[in-house]
């Protein structure tokens, strides 16, 4: 199986996972280990400051020495906030400049604000950030983001956390056809068949969080997603048969004893 290359580093797994919404940090750690993911997203937030207790920190469970940590700019609605968040992320991760840029448009849909996303990407690239970018399913926008130097485009398949699956198959396909950087579907996956579908379309990977973290059994879903991504990728490479209107018998006509 050929590897996923992101920022010059090769990965065996084409499944990228988030770390939000788990019951606790132990479950986060276990589910991510089961998923086989090697690239893991995190959010950047103010710490809870108390005088007494030392609250556990995510990166004590998900060790940056074991995983590629991909900080996101979730919660940012303009370029300025997203740029600030990326600089903070780089400071947190001791200079690592790989980030998932997402600049949101509104709370209801969490759709990307393309104008602000482009503005932020341009600024961040000047500062040597390596941008994986959450974007709409518009191939022209995806191409523009690639042209300005984003290292991966991450279109949504349906709204973040919706679990609606792939609602824009042909748009994703067009992005895949046109892109020269890895296309990683980010958002919309609800269950394993959705992840397979993404890979069968020829995407380079799929990123998910809610589908695993909010499943009744997150560890089992993590395993299911791992298999789904692998089998979908294999099916894409194997090449599916064309769809036909009518039946085509699998057994030979010759020698049929049913005259």
């Amino acid at each position, binding site marked *: 199986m050929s590897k996923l290359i992101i920022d010059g580093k090769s990965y065996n797994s084409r499944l990228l996972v988030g*770390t939000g919404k788990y019951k606790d940090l132990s479950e986060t750690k276990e589910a991510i280990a089961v998923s086989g993911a090697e690239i893991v997203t995190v959010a950047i937030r103010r710490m809870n400051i108390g005088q007494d207790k030392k609250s556990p920190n995510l*990166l004590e469970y998900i060790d940056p020495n074991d995983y590629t940590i991909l900080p996101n700019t979730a919660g940012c609605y303009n370029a300025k906030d997203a740029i600030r968040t990326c600089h*903070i992320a780089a*400071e947190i991760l001791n200079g690592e400049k790989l980030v998932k840029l997402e600049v949101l448009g509104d709370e209801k849909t969490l759709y990307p604000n393309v104008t602000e996303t482009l503005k932020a990407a341009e600024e961040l690239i000047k500062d040597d950030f390596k941008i994986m970018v959450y974007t709409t399913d518009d191939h022209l926008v995806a191409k523009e983001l690639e042209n300005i130097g984003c290292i991966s485009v991450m279109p949504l398949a349906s709204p973040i956390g919706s679990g609606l699956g792939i609602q824009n198959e042909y748009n994703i396909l067009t992005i895949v056809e046109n892109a020269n950087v890895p296309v990683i579907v980010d958002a919309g996956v609800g269950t394993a068949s959705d992840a397979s579908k993404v890979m069968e379309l020829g995407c380079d990977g799929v990123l998910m969080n809610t589908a695993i973290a909010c499943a009744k059994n997150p560890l089992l879903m993590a395993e299911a997603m791992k298999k789904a991504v692998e089998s979908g990728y294999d099916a894409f490479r194997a090449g599916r048969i064309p769809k036909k209107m009518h039946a085509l018998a699998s057994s030979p006509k010759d020698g049929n004893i049913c005259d």
Partner: protein
Amino acid sequence: MNIILNNDEQVVLESISISELLEKFKIDLEYMAVEVNQTIVPKSKYESFRLKENDKVEIISAVGGG
């Protein structure tokens, strides 16, 4: 003196350093960032950087997210 720490008012010693502030609030993390008035203070400056009255300090880390 007063500072704003992660959006809350706090009373701290005059000219407290970032290192002293982290010690006071029992923060000992390998992966974190500090901003003072929206400018990042690099880890190498925690000892020498001293806060002033009304400084707005943010102590930030990574949390679960997608």
